[in-house]
C-alpha cells in the first residue's frame, strides 16, 4: 500500500513540473495555409474551438502521435480577474493541430518545418521497432514480444521474449538475433534472422513435481515484413529452434508466427 501511495505522490509531483524550462525558446511556426483548425484534444473526435489564420505565429509545445499542441503568440490585452490582476494565458490560445498542417508552415527563417511524419518513406529509415507476435511453436500456442533496433538500413538487432503453452510443457525463452533485410524499401520486405538465447521449459505434471530445465537455444529463420499504414507493420515469420539439451539429442522445433508491430 505504501509503495502505491509513494508512486502516486511522485506522479502528481511530476505533473506540476513544467514541460519546458522558461528560458528555453519553443520552436515557432508561421501559418502559410489560409487557416488551421485547433482542437481541444489530440484527435479528430475533439471539437474545433479556434481557427488560426495565415500569417499568425504559433509556438509548438509538444507532439502526441500525429497531433501537435500549439499556442498562439499573445494577442491583445490580457483579461483581468475580479481583483484587477491579469489572468495568465488569457490572450493566447492553446490547442491541437494535425502534424501535416504544421509541416506546411514556415519557421522563423522562412523554411518549411521538419516534423516527424510517419510515412511509407520513413518505413525504410526506421530505427526502433516493437511488436507482438502470436503463433504455433511445435504444436503449442506461443506469444512473443520483441523489440528491434536498426543500426543500418539492412541490418537490425532484435530481442524476442516468448512464452509457449502446451499440454505437456510450457516454457519461456529469450533470444537475441541479427536480422537482415535485403530489400528494406520494398513494401513486402523479406528478412532472414539468426541468433541464440536461452529457453526454460516447465514440464507439466499434476501429480509429481517435475523440475524445470534451462537450455541454450539457437534460432534461424525468415519471414516477411509488410508495411500497413502509418506506423504499423505486419510480420509473418518462420523460425527453426534448436534447443541444445544436456542429453545426447538436440530438440528441433518449428515455429510459425504472425504479428503486428509499430516502428518509431
Amino acid at each position, binding site marked *: 500500500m505504501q509503495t502505491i501511495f509513494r508512486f502516486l505522490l511522485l506522479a502528481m509531483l511530476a*505533473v506540476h513540473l513544467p514541460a519546458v524550462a522558461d528560458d528555453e525558446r519553443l520552436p515557432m511556426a508561421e501559418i502559410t495555409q489560409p487557416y488551421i483548425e485547433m482542437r*481541444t484534444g489530440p484527435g*479528430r473526435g475533439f471539437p474545433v474551438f479556434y481557427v488560426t489564420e495565415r500569417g499568425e505565429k504559433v509556438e509548438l509545445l509538444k*507532439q502526441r502521435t500525429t497531433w501537435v499542441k500549439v499556442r498562439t503568440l499573445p494577442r491583445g490585452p490580457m483579461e483581468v480577474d475580479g481583483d484587477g490582476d491579469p489572468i495568465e494565458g488569457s490572450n493566447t490560445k492553446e490547442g491541437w493541430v494535425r502534424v501535416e498542417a504544421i509541416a506546411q508552415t514556415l519557421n522563423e527563417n522562412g523554411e518549411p518545418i521538419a516534423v*516527424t511524419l510517419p510515412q511509407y518513406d520513413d518505413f525504410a529509415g526506421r530505427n526502433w521497432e*516493437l511488436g507482438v507476435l502470436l503463433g504455433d511453436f511445435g504444436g503449442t500456442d506461443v*506469444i512473443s514480444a520483441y523489440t528491434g533496433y536498426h543500426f543500418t538500413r539492412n541490418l537490425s538487432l532484435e530481442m524476442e521474449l516468448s512464452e509457449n503453452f502446451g499440454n505437456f510443457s510450457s516454457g519461456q525463452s529469450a533470444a537475441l538475433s541479427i536480422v537482415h533485410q535485403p530489400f528494406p524499401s520494398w513494401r513486402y520486405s523479406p528478412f532472414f534472422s539468426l541468433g541464440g538465447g536461452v529457453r526454460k521449459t*516447465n514440464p507439466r505434471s499434476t501429480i509429481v513435481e517435475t523440475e524445470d530445465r534451462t537450455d541454450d537455444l539457437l534460432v534461424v529463420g525468415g519471414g516477411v515484413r509488410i508495411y500497413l499504414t*502509418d506506423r504499423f507493420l505486419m510480420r509473418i515469420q518462420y523460425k527453426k529452434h534448436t534447443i541444445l539439451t544436456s542429453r545426447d539429442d538436440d530438440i528441433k522445433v518449428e515455429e510459425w508466427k504472425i504479428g503486428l508491430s509499430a516502428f518509431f
Partner: protein
Amino acid sequence: MENWTKRFLLTGTVLCSCLSSSVVSAQADAVQVIEPELDRRELKEDSIDTENFEIGVFAGVISIEDFSSSPVYGVRAAYHVTEDFFFEATYGLAEGDLTSFEKLSGGSPLLSDEDREYTYYDISLGWNFLPGEIFIWDKYAFNTQVYSIVGVGSTEFAGDNWFTVNIGAGVRLLLTDAFAWHLDFRDHIFDRDTFGEDQTTHNLEFHTGITLFF
C-alpha cells in the same frame, strides 16, 4: 609543371584581389549594407517534445472463476501509435480465495497457498473509438477517450502458466495533458484443467488507475 605554377599564381592573385575588394567594398558600403541579426536555429525533428508513451499503476477487483473475488494490483505501460490505436502491456497480481467446495466440505485445500497466487501479464492492442469531452459542473471540461482493448498474454495460477486472451473496454480521462485517469473492465479468458477436465474460465476484472504520459 607549367600548368601548376600558372594555377597557383592565378588563384593567389584572385584571392588577393577578392580580399582587397571586400575590404574596400565594406568600407565603402558600411552605411548601406545592413547585417540583419538572424538567430539561426535549426528546427530539428526532436525539438518538439513527443509524448507517446504512457506508464501507470492500477488497482481493482478480479473475479477468479471458482476461486472467489480478490483485489488486484498492477502496472501498465502503453505506446500510442496513432490517435486511434495503442499498444499496452499490463502486469497484475491477485490472490485467489477458497472455492465453494473447500468452504462447504471443510476438507483439505485443493491448492497450496503458493498456487493460489494469480499473476498475469498481457500485451494488447487498444482502439480509441469514442473520443470526446466530459463536462463537470460549470467550469471543467476534460478530454476523454473510450477505448476497447483486446490482447494475449499469460496467467500463472494453480501451478501452471495458461495462455490467456483478454478483451475489454475502458475510459481514459485526460486530467491534464500528461496525467490520465483510467477506468477499465476486462475479461481474461483461459482454458484451465485444474479440476480434471479442460474448462474455459472467464475472469472478470474491473480496475481503476492513473497514468502519466511522457
